[in-house]
């Protein structure tokens, strides 16, 4: 263990000062605050909301914002605020879960390609080049449709196409790290490759991977919402920002907030996550 710490200089003194660093970096601080508010609202949804997200009230359809419904109601009288907050639960959960597989495979494949080089690298590059040849939304739409739409389809889609981002970044980083003395000496000591990858390479590529994770989460959230909008994402009546925007589109002439407000929720989450990403980038780059 001692040896690990001395070999991996970058990962050594992060933990004890992380909280201080959050306070010192404004973008990181405000990003975390914004995200905490969003997650807090989502978690406390049953406490905050007076209405169930799918409770219809045909006597009160398409109401403008009022004291009873602070954001008004939609075409079947469902409370817009309740749907917005419950949609946050659904979308944020799926966004986080959908990132797990691509993050792990992407980082692992990237390290393999960077460490072993040669044919491993060639194979990984070929696969990534093939998949990025398809326009992102085209392949997301087709795979989501082919794997049967809905929540399960979203997980399958991003498990298949989401890892490329990580693989490309981590591959380059690993390849340059592997030329440095401490990895070369670990190799010279005869440590097995898989041990070097997990013990010594992983802690050093992880910060970069987490920074990419933040921006990529925004991308996945937008993709989930887009799939919902196109009708091949989360199926109604489950609340989802994308389907809310799509349903509100019919009333864009008179009840514009039905489409605009759910979009603002996506933008808000996007700003929070990219602030965290930028902040982490500053913290870990300076060191």
């Amino acid at each position: 263990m001692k040896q690990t710490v001395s070999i991996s200089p970058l990962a050594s003194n992060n933990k004890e000062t992380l909280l201080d660093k959050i306070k010192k970096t404004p973008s990181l601080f405000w990003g975390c605050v914004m995200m905490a508010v969003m997650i807090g609202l989502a978690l406390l949804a049953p406490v905050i909301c007076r209405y169930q997200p799918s409770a219809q009230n045909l006597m009160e359809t398409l109401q403008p914002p009022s004291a009873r419904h602070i954001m008004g109601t939609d075409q079947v009288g469902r409370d817009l605020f309740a749907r917005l907050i419950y949609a946050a639960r659904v979308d944020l959960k799926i966004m986080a879960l959908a990132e797990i597989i691509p993050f792990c495979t992407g980082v692992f494949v990237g390290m393999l390609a960077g460490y072993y080089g040669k044919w491993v690298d060639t194979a990984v590059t070929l696969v990534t080049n093939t998949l990025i040849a398809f326009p992102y939304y085209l392949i997301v739409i087709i795979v989501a449709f082919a794997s049967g739409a809905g929540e399960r389809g979203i997980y399958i889609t991003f498990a298949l196409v989401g890892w490329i981002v990580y693989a490309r970044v981590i591959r380059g980083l690993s390849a340059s790290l592997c030329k440095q003395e401490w990895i070369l000496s670990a190799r010279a000591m005869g440590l097995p490759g898989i041990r070097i990858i997990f013990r010594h390479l992983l802690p050093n590529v992880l910060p970069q991977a987490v920074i990419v994770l933040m921006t990529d989460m925004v991308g996945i959230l937008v993709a989930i919402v887009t799939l919902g909008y196109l009708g091949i994402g989360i199926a109604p009546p489950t609340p989802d920002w994308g389907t809310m925007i799509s349903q509100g589109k019919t009333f864009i002439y008179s009840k514009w907030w039905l489409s605009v407000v759910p979009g603002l929720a996506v933008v808000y989450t996007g700003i929070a996550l990219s602030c965290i990403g930028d902040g982490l980038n500053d913290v870990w780059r300076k060191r």
Partner: protein
Amino acid sequence: MKMLISANDKSSSAAAAGGYNPGGLRALGIIKTVLRALLKAAVVIVCVVVVVFFIIRLVPGDPVKMILGEHSTPEAALKLRHQLGLDLPVWQQFVRFLHNLFVNGDTGNSIVYGVSTKSLIAQRVPVSLMLILMAIVISIIVSMLLAVAAATHKDGVQDHLIRVLPTITLGMPVFWVGLLLILLFGVQLHLFPVGGVSAGAGGMLYSLTLPAITVALSQIPSLVRSLRAQILDVLESDFVVTLKAAGIPKNVILFKHVLRNSSIPTLMLLGVNVSYLIGGTLVVEQVFDIRGVGSLLFSSISSRDFPVIQGIALYCAVAVVIISFITEIAAYCLDPRLKGEK
């Protein structure tokens, strides 16, 4: 565009004449780069074909049942299965697919329309292509203006505003931005139509303006970021200092010399981003009711028209491969220092 290229030709020939890269070696280098890029593109296209063939086989359950519905007669199912070649072993299906692709350049006949996928897509391509071209023109012009504003007022208000742009726009779904534009320019200001495409060249340009702006807005932040960095780089270089010392007006230096030299990497970025552009266009067509390739894709998805879906995926991917091939070669030819990726 022409100006940019000619400007760089000058600089590269100057570099060659200066003994940086002798003519013969340079020609050899170009041939080598072209061959390498060509090989890479060919291999990727082969892989793309394989992916397109198998992607439809991800569909759980029986595609014939999905097309005909659960209550189809067995005879109809058998007939369609035979028509699609699904009664053959997978390898024979693949051979048929390849044969059709090489002989006809097609992925089979549309199940719904009965005509070849190729002709169906060809009908829809002009509108989509026009939309993409307009989006590219708009994003280049706007990015240049914003980047110049940011770079010339480094650390000023404009610069800060432009630098936070990517943070805000990253989380904006492109279809939502489209809706906002419809709301603002279509519904409130009545400046543009809210959907559909009018007849005639002028009408087409007019009705594609909002969609093109929508697609362009998704590209502008990354282009501005790159262009701003490039301009700042060039502004600090020796030749700009010399030009300034020679008393050449600031605006002339900026627009004639700096912008030319800093545009190449940004155009390259646009070449790389073209895949996102195409994807964004597919979605935006849906928002503005444009009958282009995107709407064909969605109608094919809802009618389970597998050959058409495969065709669209294939042609889009091949287009992207060809564009990145051209970008790679252009990057090499325009910049002698950039030897191309390994």
